[in-house]
């Protein structure tokens, strides 16, 4: 019995370690073993296969953010954890679009809801930031993208044809402030940070 438990523990640890280091083998295995379960859940709750794909991908991103936290410890089976995160994401999406009851299993309620909420909200925020980014002017998008990808200010100045490095910096802060304003003025953002 103990041996089986140890084997299972080792199995779960291998998955978490694989996720942390982004091992392709682990990711392929997760898709193969668990996607059908999540797909069934989404299909049973008025979703499509495409919805299942989106939710599964988002769940993976949310879990990645939790497992990279040094204090993370998996307190249940990985399958249960993934199921709970996926169900949470799908529930949120349904709530955003059409209120409905979900057919869920009781295991959702059993594991650390707060941790899951945090992970899902953070992943949703990242998606939201990317959406808001596209609302900036094209020049601002180019400028911020270059900065965020670590390009040297002098090169950015030359390539965007700005008059001076000081002006580039000034524009950078204007664009960044603009982006933050777009984010903060959107009511969705208040929902995404409200539970913190």
């Amino acid at each position: 019995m103990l041996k089986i438990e140890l084997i299972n523990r080792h199995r779960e640890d291998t998955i978490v370690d694989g996720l942390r280091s982004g091992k392709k083998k682990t990711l392929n295995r997760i898709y193969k073993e668990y996607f059908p379960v999540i797909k069934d859940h989404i299909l049973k709750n008025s979703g499509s296969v495409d919805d299942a794909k989106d939710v599964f991908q988002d769940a993976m991103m949310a879990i990645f953010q939790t497992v990279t936290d040094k204090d993370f410890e998996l307190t249940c089976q990985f399958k249960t954890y993934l199921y709970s995160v996926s169900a949470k994401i799908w529930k949120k999406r349904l709530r955003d679009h059409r209120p409905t009851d979900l057919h869920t299993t009781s295991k959702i309620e059993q594991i650390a809801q707060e941790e899951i909420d945090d992970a899902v909200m953070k992943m949703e925020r990242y998606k939201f930031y990317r959406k808001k980014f596209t609302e900036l002017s094209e020049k601002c998008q180019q400028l911020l993208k270059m900065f965020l990808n670590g390009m040297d200010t002098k090169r950015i100045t030359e390539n965007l044809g700005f008059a001076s490095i000081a002006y580039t910096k000034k524009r950078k802060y204007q664009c960044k402030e603009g982006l933050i304003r777009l984010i903060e003025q959107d009511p969705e953002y208040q929902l995404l940070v409200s539970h913190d």
Partner: protein
Amino acid sequence: MTRKERLELIDRYKNGRLEGLALQRFERQLETDEALRKDFRLDKELSEAMNESSDYNLFKELVGEAEDNYFGENPRDQWNMSRVAAIISFFLISSITIWWFATRDLTPDQRFEKAFTAYKAPANFRGSELANMDDDFMLGLIKYEKAEYRESIRLFEMASSKDQTNFTARFLLAMSHMSLRQFAEAKPILEILSADDDHLFQDPVRWYLGLLYLADGDESNDSLSRALFDRIENKEYKEMVRSLR
């Protein structure tokens, strides 16, 4: 403190330009100043969400690959894909047939105008590739995508002069020239690429160089064009050649 000042301060902290007292003060402020703490978190999350090389985005690419692997292997999805491919092929063949009837009496110039579409710039670079990417090349891609070919020519020329093995830069340089109908400039680049086996643009080079030979007004080049077209292996390009003939 205004938001601009807060953002500047956060930048100085992130770039390691705060030291001693200033650093101590910043860390203490983070604990006590709500607005600074909020901006600090938002800045951190924004950087991670938007930086193509962040762990978050690199991981996202890996998840995308795993999804492709999974659905590529799944027989039911393969069947669905075959159905989609059959529908697309049907529409493609119909369009090509219509196009052939519409263009069979055109001059070489008109044919070129009809057949030429600039090669679509590769966009799905991995984070690691982006991090190591030459600035001129990256900017060249942006300009090329926006069809600002004079600028992309300048940038790709700089990128390829720094690295002759940057075949993408050289190929897209030729594409930029062709898009501006600068055949004399595009020709030597494509001819050199055509004689080189070390890149992945073999069939695109054969197609575009063949097209260029047909449009350059020199009929003696028509046989060269045919020879290039005959060497094309890719189904899509073969189809394009067939429709051209």
